């Protein structure tokens, strides 16, 4: 890459300043959240913008333990069971189970369909490819009521397995990324295996998919992060299986908690972000640069 000298470009300097300000606007609230999460409730009210312990208490690392032990949301059932309180550890468990299962199924669906469409010549494959493009171009507004209605009718409402199946669609950007990846892998490996007597399924699972493992890993991570963060789906379709991101949302409007208070909410925020940040730090080189959308060519 060609480096530029920007000192002679006033516009560039302006944007540099703008970007620095933007990064600061991301860091400052985040640090503020971390600091606020370590205050006592009284200290936070008296001293919202300063280090913990100025007026009351000290650095309250206990807040995190309290949130983990005492923060809950109330879950009521539609089938007449008594409502119960769900605590944060259970929500985390729900989030992990659902996110991992859903990531696996969704990525498999995208990957396998894209592989077949990219590597086998058959009429239906072209139909599928066009379908993906068309569904991406044609915007459909307001089919949420219909989706809830349908999920209710087929018994998938408030059903983890049902929701995973609903999410396992092969359409979307991920399909196109996988499609491009498989198009770029030589078919000769597969032909060699076919001559040795391998079946189609064997070639797919033991030869072609491992060749695309970088893409698979990157897209799985993106999918996982997306699902972990998606609080609305959990709120709409899984009322009795609350996940951490939804718990956080519900918690800010709740006033029945033993740990209600902004300081606790901030601690909960930090806890919900933590797994994602760890994932990002561990895999940032794999994630960054994995996303590129070329165009919508049908």
């Amino acid at each position, binding site marked *: *890459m*060609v480096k*530029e000298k*920007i000192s002679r*470009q006033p516009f*560039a300097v302006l944007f*540099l300043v703008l*970007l620095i300000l933007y*990064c600061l606007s*991301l860091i400052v*609230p*985040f640090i503020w*959240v971390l600091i606020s999460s370590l205050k006592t409730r009284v200290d*936070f009210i008296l001293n*919202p*913008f300063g280090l913990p312990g100025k007026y009351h208490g000290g650095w309250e690392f206990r807040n995190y333990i309290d949130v983990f032990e005492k923060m809950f949301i109330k879950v009521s059932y539609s089938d007449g069971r008594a409502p119960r309180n769900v605590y944060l550890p259970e929500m985390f468990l729900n989030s992990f189970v659902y996110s991992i299962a859903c990531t696996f199924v969704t990525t498999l*669906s995208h990957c396998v*369909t894209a592989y*077949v469409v990219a590597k*086998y010549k058959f009429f*239906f494959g072209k139909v*599928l490819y066009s*379908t993906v493009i068309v569904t991406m*171009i*044609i*915007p*459909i*507004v*307001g*089919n*949420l*009521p219909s*989706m*809830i*209605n*349908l999920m209710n009718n087929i018994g998938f409402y408030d059903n983890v397995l049902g929701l995973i*199946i609903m999410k*396992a669609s092969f*359409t979307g950007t991920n399909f196109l990324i996988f499609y491009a990846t498989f198009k770029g892998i030589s078919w000769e490996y597969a032909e060699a295996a076919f001559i040795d007597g391998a*079946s*189609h399924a064997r070639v797919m699972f033991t030869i072609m998919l491992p060749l695309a493992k970088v893409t698979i890993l990157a897209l799985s991570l993106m999918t996982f992060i997306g699902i972990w*963060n*998606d*609080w609305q789906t959990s709120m*709409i379709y899984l009322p009795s299986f609350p996940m951490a991101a939804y718990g*956080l949302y519900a918690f800010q*409007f709740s006033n029945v908690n033993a740990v209600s208070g*902004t300081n606790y*909410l901030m601690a909960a*925020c930090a806890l919900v*972000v933590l797994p994602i*940040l760890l994932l*990002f730090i561990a895999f940032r080189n794999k994630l*960054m*640069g994995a*996303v*590129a*959308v070329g*165009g*919508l060519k049908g």
Partner: protein
Amino acid sequence: MRKSKNLNPDLEKKATVKEKISERMGKVGRAIKLFFYNLSVRLYNLKKNRKKKIRSAKSKNFAKNLFLFCVLIIPVIQFCVFYIGVNINSILLAFKQYDIATGEYHFIGFGHFKEFIRQIGTDFTLQFATKNSFILYAIGLFICMPLHIMSSFFVYKKIPLSGMFKIFLYVPSIVSSVVMTIMYKYFVDRAVPSLLNLFGVQNVPDLFKSQQTAWSVIIFYNIWFGLGSGIILYTGAMSRIPDSLIEYGKLEGLGMWKEFWKITVPLIFPTITVFLVTGIAGIFTNQAGLYTFYGGNAPQYLYTYGYYLFVKVVGDTAQLADYPFASAAGLLFTLFVAPITLLAKYLLEKFGTNAEF
């Protein structure tokens, strides 16, 4: 793994540990494989009269078709139910009415459509929603998008600190929107007033509840939160531009500004097209983060179409009786926005640059 041996002693250490582990695992694996192989040979020998299998072209073709069928059957059924089925159901729902007494839906014709069109003209909430949705879209198009492209360009040109920018710009797209919103909400609500007090500004209004400030606060949030994800995709597209083209531009004496207009923008135009085309529907789907800020109780003057449709169906304010009405509204919006989207795609592809590289 072997290649990295000379590069770094740390890596080498890791590699030897890994090799040891994989060697041991390999032994176990080989033993298991051998066991199964022996088993299969024995089973094979049991059937002594087995005919030798010769695969004809026909059976090969059959095997291929069977494989394709097995792979595609589940995704195709999933698509039929959850895309085609849902959308057909949505159209049907728009013509139905919910009967509270029996709990069933029955057909009523175009009633909801007429009602919605009447309300767009008279209902204050919807009038606010119309105004706000179009303002948000215009801001996205004329302020955010140029900002995204310009910032991406500078990050891509490796200006000082660009590595740091790249990492930080990822943050809004990996951190849950609910966390970002809560962070922003409480920072604006609690920290900003006390900061302003420090600078001598007294009596700061409740920024989220005062009618003068709430809308600006929401708009600022949308610009702030949206910046990151745009930059990721644009820098991704820009990094695919071949260096040779840029070198060529340099030799021709193109400055940074000209390079941006003459090389970068034309070459990433397909990506810009994607944003332009898919963004149009955003007029009717953008909730502007309102549900995270206010739950179902956002003030009327903040409504957008996306939020309006959402709270009709989800949360405490939702009623089953409103589902058909929301479907009808959605259908009308789709009928309005789909032709515009297709036209925009056609025009952008016809008149925009579409270089292959």
